[in-house]
């Protein structure tokens, strides 16, 4: 028997010894250039711009409106009474809660008004209090209506919570300095 010698195949191989070096380099690059921190803050939607000539005066009944004024000295007025900023949420919560079952035209409107010289930090603290009271009320509502946490609700349920407790904040224009 004649044995036919199998021709030895030449193995083709892509040289990959340097690959991990390249990957390491890429990894280092992305490590250095990455910023993972997310932007956090208080979200708001501004009202549409309407030129002064076309502005209409819409009357708003008094029990719908909570007006919050902050002057340049840092005094805070809620519906005319002086109040400390950390107390705002306690005052607002019952008022928001009392309007949960009213139609959307009767929900609470919170109007925030500042002077041009009011400190920005105070404004943010006040806005924070307002947002906080809304989120507390929304949490309590989702707990009582669905027995679930706000973040576990289905999209439809979230929508219901948001229509029951809409966040209406009106940023009034500061008065011009005469």
């Amino acid at each position, binding site marked *: 028997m004649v044995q036919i010698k199998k021709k030895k195949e030449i193995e083709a191989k892509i040289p990959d010894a340097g*690959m*991990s070096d390249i*990957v*390491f380099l*890429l*990894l280092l690059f*992305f*490590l250095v*250039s*990455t*910023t*993972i921190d*997310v*932007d*956090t*803050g*208080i*979200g*708001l*939607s*501004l*009202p*549409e*711009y309407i030129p002064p000539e076309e502005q209409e005066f819409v009357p708003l009944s008094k029990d719908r409106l909570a007006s919050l004024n902050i002057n340049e000295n840092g005094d805070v007025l809620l519906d005319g009474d002086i109040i400390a900023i950390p107390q705002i949420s306690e005052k607002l919560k019952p008022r928001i809660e009392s309007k949960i079952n009213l139609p959307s035209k009767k929900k609470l409107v919170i109007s925030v008004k*500042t*002077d*041009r*010289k*009011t*400190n*920005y*930090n105070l*404004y*943010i*603290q006040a*806005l*924070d209090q307002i*947002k*906080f009271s*809304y*989120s507390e009320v929304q949490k309590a509502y989702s707990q009582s209506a669905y027995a679930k946490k706000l973040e576990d609700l289905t999209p439809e349920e979230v929508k219901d919570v948001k229509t029951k407790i809409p966040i209406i904040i009106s*940023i009034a*224009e*500061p008065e011009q300095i005469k």
Partner: protein
Amino acid sequence: MPDIIFMLLLFFMVATTLRERDVYVKFKLPEAVAIQKIENKRLISYIWVGKSGKIQLNDNLVLVEDIQDIMYKKRVELPNVIVSLRIDKESNMGVVHDIQQELRKADARRINYSAMLKQ
């Protein structure tokens, strides 16, 4: 080993948003409790207001009057742009209000007052 590195690499590639902006103004953010995260970083335009009252919009220092034009163009490109306002906490409301008016005119009405979580 290379697998793990690959995985890390992929993670950082996905999590990265390239090009950090240079900030030319000095600012210190206010602190707040009821804050939200903005999920989509690509939608954000930034406005900085520094201690000195200088205003920076994205990459350039601008005047208040310029904001409307720039933001209007931006909004045409990116209809649901979010404007992140990074304003120094010692600023006056006057400048904040002026910026808001410009944004309203430009119809870029989704804003976010940037704030740090109060510890």
